[in-house]
């Protein structure tokens, strides 16, 4: 199990390889990236702040909940903080399992809970304008469907 909060970029290939093992049949990964100017958002940069000490604990708690629900061989969660430019990677969630469906569901579950529970905050820059991103109802909805 790997949980990291860091300013440096991460290597999706290396993280995927690190989860490969003879007991693993599949690895589901999600890479979140910064949308930018050429999208509707018009964002020129993203600044990510977090709550050191609490963040890692929340990510470990989410990971433990995923392991309790699905037969997972291993999980990796990496989240970047600091100033990121459009196209850059923000977050990686990877879940390895003997079973494809478990890997997919666990990765999606972890992303949904990370979005609502992990103490990260984003500010978007558009030129000289800097604005804190508001939480979206769709993220609470996504989290809610796991308790159905």
């Amino acid at each position: 199990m790997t949980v990291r909060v860091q300013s440096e970029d991460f290597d999706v290939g290396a993280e995927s390889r690190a989860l490969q093992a003879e007991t693993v049949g599949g690895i589901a990964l999600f890479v979140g990236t910064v949308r930018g100017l050429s999208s509707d958002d018009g964002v020129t940069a993203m600044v990510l702040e977090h709550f050191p000490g609490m963040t890692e604990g929340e990510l470990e708690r989410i990971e433990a909940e995923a392991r309790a629900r699905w037969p997972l061989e291993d999980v990796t969660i990496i989240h970047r903080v600091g100033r990121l430019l459009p196209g850059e990677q923000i977050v990686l969630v990877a879940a390895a399992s003997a079973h494809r469906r478990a890997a997919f569901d666990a990765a999606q579950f972890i992303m949904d809970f990370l979005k609502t529970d992990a103490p990260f905050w984003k500010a978007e820059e558009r030129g000289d304008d800097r604005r804190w991103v508001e939480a979206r109802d769709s993220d609470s909805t996504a989290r809610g469907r796991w308790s159905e």
Partner: protein
Amino acid sequence: MTLTIRYFAWMREHTGTDLETVDLPDGVARVGDLVPHLATISDGHALALQNLQVVRVAVNRAYGDLDTPVAAGDEVAFFPPVTGG
């Protein structure tokens, strides 16, 4: 009773601090009791805490709410709903 208070994101910007130590009278037993005291520290504190509906709370790095008990030495964090990922 001394507590450590943390603020994040726009609450940090409004209060002008990410970390402060506050001395509180003995009647303060829960997170909600803290708020009127913190709101007097500055106009920025009052602004940050004016709408508690949109504020989240953690006590000693675990999620809580306005009813969560607080004791001397606790760390209480106030922040907006999270937006990572």
